């Protein structure tokens, strides 16, 4: 993306006509180049697959874009104000978390924490691995663990299926861990979801919705499952209901999927050719 500067000082404009015309030609030539942030993101390998391939191919074939990324690769430093603000923010978010190095049993702050541990065991079986950096959400969906027949997705999902986790209400359970009926009830649906068995997952989420119509996890993951089965209107309704629950830890993810569901559900249905 290029633009003609509109604030050139007189000495900056004092150039031969052919030079000024040359800049016009360069701007036109690179007018549709990917913006600098995408070029740098592609160099770092963090764009979604399709964009990564396209922008990387452009970068490989365009010396101007390469020079631009090379010349701006250092980035800007953090200033003292930002550094202090970030530290204050991190300390605020750490206030309710246990101190590093504390024995594992100190994390058992009441039954709610126990419910988290119980759920965490079957939500993230790899939770006891050494300290590897948290993976991107797109990398956390596990492959099916058994050879049971499953129904593949009918409609391609716009991004990888979201990793399974619990919302604030499920985590705030104050009874005994084994009495968290809702979390226990989620397990069959979550198992099917994790294996990619969308039909079984949908059926399980439908049954759960009768008992827990306001269950965020039922609505959100049920909506994603419906989208994978091509039921865009069903997905839209489910995700709209999930958005109304307004769980701060889920809102971003729900919004992202709801945008796709809204667009897919509003597309006109084309009749099959005769």
């Amino acid at each position, binding site marked *: *993306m290029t*633009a003609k*500067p*509109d604030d050139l000082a007189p000495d900056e404009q*004092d*150039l*031969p006509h*052919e030079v000024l015309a*040359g*800049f016009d*030609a*360069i701007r036109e*030539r690179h007018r*549709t*180049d*990917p913006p*600098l942030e*995408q070029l*740098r*993101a592609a160099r*770092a390998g*963090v*764009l*979604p697959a*399709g*964009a990564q*391939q*396209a*922008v990387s*191919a*452009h970068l490989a074939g365009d*010396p*101007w874009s390469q*020079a*631009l990324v*090379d*010349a*701006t690769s*250092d*980035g*800007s*430093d*953090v200033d003292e104000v930002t550094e202090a603000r*970030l*530290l204050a*923010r*991190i300390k605020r*978010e*750490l206030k309710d*978390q246990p101190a590093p*190095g504390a024995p594992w049993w100190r994390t058992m702050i009441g039954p709610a924490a126990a419910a988290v541990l119980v759920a965490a065991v079957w939500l993230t079986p790899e939770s006891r691995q*050494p*300290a590897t*950096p*948290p*993976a*991107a*959400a797109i990398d956390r969906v596990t492959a099916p663990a058994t050879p049971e027949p499953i129904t593949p997705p009918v409609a391609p999902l716009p991004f990888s299926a979201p990793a399974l986790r619990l919302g604030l209400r499920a985590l705030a359970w104050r009874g005994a861990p084994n009495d968290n009926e809702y979390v226990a009830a989620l397990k069959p649906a979550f198992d099917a979801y994790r294996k990619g068995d969308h039909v079984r997952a949908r059926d399980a989420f439908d049954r759960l919705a009768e008992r827990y119509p306001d269950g965020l996890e039922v609505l959100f993951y049920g909506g994603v499952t419906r989208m994978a089965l091509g039921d865009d209107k069903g997905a839209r309704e489910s995700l709209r209901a999930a958005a109304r629950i307004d769980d701060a830890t889920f809102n971003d993810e729900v919004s*992202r999927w709801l945008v*796709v569901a809204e667009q897919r559900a509003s597309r006109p249905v084309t009749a099959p050719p005769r």
Partner: protein
Amino acid sequence: MEFEALYREHVAAVFRFAVHLTRKHEIAEDLTAEAFLALHRELDRIDPAQLPGWLLTVVRNRARDWWRHALVEQRHVEHVQAQATRPRPAAPPLEQWILESGDLKPVHRACVMLRYVHGLSRDEIARELGLTSNQVKGHLQYALTLLRKAYGVSVNDREARRLGA
């Protein structure tokens, strides 16, 4: 090692990397905060020798998630693909001079590219390159001097033009 000491030692590198990946300071702050929160959670299992690499990996993974969200619709991804592969006219001589001149250091090249082709103000270029506005002004003046020399424009020519001769 104490968490705050690790923070102070590595925050600059982590933040700079986050800005490099997203070019948005507010997003970079989010990614940086998330990286250090992740560090705090794993602090008893982290070898300080793994830093800042471990933190940068967290930032990279979070940036990947952010980009996936930013390019939220497949349509947008397709637009990026179409734009990136669109055929373009041949490079004009000035572009070749900017890219190949041995007299231009990378910082001069960056200032000229960002100013004249990508339309950034001096302040924006300063933020992009981690310089002051005065430094950007100086680099631009140097680059333009070289450019005028390359195109055979002498000081006398410029003075004559200024005087309307």
